[in-house]
């Protein structure tokens, strides 16, 4: 029992909670940025501009099919070779944003495509322009269909921030490793703490999502 009390001393807990804060900070910034970029890219994919949409489509497919870990390595260790140097925090945010934007673009595109084509035809026939129809009629309906996949994407983003431990971003997992590195008796308590903290954040988000879903449907 004294082991547990030692492992969860206030100093250790505070150190972990600061890590949780870094995890949440990186997640929130990446979620906001990738939601904006992903929506723009998804609409570009849907609207089918000549050339632009095809090029965007190829880039999205390439990024979506690579491991996030590889993008993280590439951003932090590869890009400095061509003169782009970043701190761990900005490298993590950059890599996550690029990866998640591609994922969200696909969610947005398939969400818009799932809206019945009659909706756009109806909007056009009552005199709206294409963009008015898209903004006022189609997007709000698509948004409803996009909420569940978007939230599970955000949950996986939060879990994926743990990968940034490899580029020495001082987030939750990194700090837990430092604590049990000092004393192996802290190992199991630290893994329990990790599991609980990640679980609480992610599960809470999924509960909020299912609440939202029930309210909109």
């Amino acid at each position, binding site marked *: 029992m004294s082991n547990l009390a030692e492992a969860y001393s206030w100093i250790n807990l505070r150190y972990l909670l600061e890590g949780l804060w870094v995890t949440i900070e990186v997640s929130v910034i990446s979620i906001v940025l990738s939601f904006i970029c992903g929506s723009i890219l998804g609409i570009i994919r849907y609207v089918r501009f000549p050339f632009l949409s095809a090029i965007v489509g190829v880039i999205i*497919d390439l990024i979506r099919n690579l*491991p996030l870990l590889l993008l993280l390595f*590439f951003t932090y260790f590869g890009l400095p070779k061509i003169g782009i140097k970043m701190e761990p925090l900005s490298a993590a945010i950059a890599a996550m944003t690029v990866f998640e934007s591609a994922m969200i673009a696909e969610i947005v595109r398939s969400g818009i495509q799932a809206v019945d084509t009659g909706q756009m035809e109806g909007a056009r026939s009552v005199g709206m322009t294409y963009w008015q129809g898209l903004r006022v009629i189609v997007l709000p309906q698509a948004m409803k269909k996009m909420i569940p996949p978007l939230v599970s994407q955000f949950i996986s983003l939060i879990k994926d921030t743990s990968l940034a431990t490899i580029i020495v971003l001082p987030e939750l*997992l990194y700090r837990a490793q430092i604590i049990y590195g000092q004393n192996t008796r802290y*190992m199991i308590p630290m*893994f329990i703490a990790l599991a609980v903290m990640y679980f609480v954040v992610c599960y809470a988000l999924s509960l909020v999502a299912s609440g939202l879903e029930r309210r909109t449907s």
Partner: protein
Amino acid sequence: MINVFMQHWQELLLGFGNTLLCSVIALFFSLVIGSAFAIFEVLPYKVLHIVGRVYIEVFRNIPLLVIGMFFYVVVPQFFVTLDGFTAGTIGLTLYTSAFIAETVRAGIQAVDDGQMEGARANGMTFMQAMWHIILPQAFRYVIPPLGNQFINLVKNSSVLAFVAGFDLMYQGDAIASTTFDTFNTYIVVGILYLIITLPLSYYMRYLEKKLA
């Protein structure tokens, strides 16, 4: 880029093979475990239902890396020794099985209720009906999402690099840190990942269109 590949093709291909191997092993076992928990969820027993729910929610909401490191760092310290490849593959299997359980459950529930009622009316037991009637039909709905899970599995297998699993990412990292040519090495590694995932993802998209 070509230089990196020509000089290190043996290590890279070994990593490529390991990535494929651990993905296939993890897919097989997570399909078995995932289907079992999916059936738990549709059985009329409250206790099994709760067990299934807890398993799925726990493994879905904890990062794969934490699960993998648990098997690499904690388990050998206190229980049995595991090499990196085994530890990583166990972690991958548990993590993926939770997602597959959700997919298979959705597939089972998409099969019309009348199928089960008809099977029971013909004198089959619940398990017989599940095995012969429901699951074969459910798997038709489940194939496209399962394909996407496999793509995720291949991408997620890169966490084996953290636990010395000698996968593609690990080999790439090793080459990058000996040659210092990080930029080109990671591009080569990326192309090798795309060789697996890109054709699969286009095929799944085609299947989805065909089945829809």
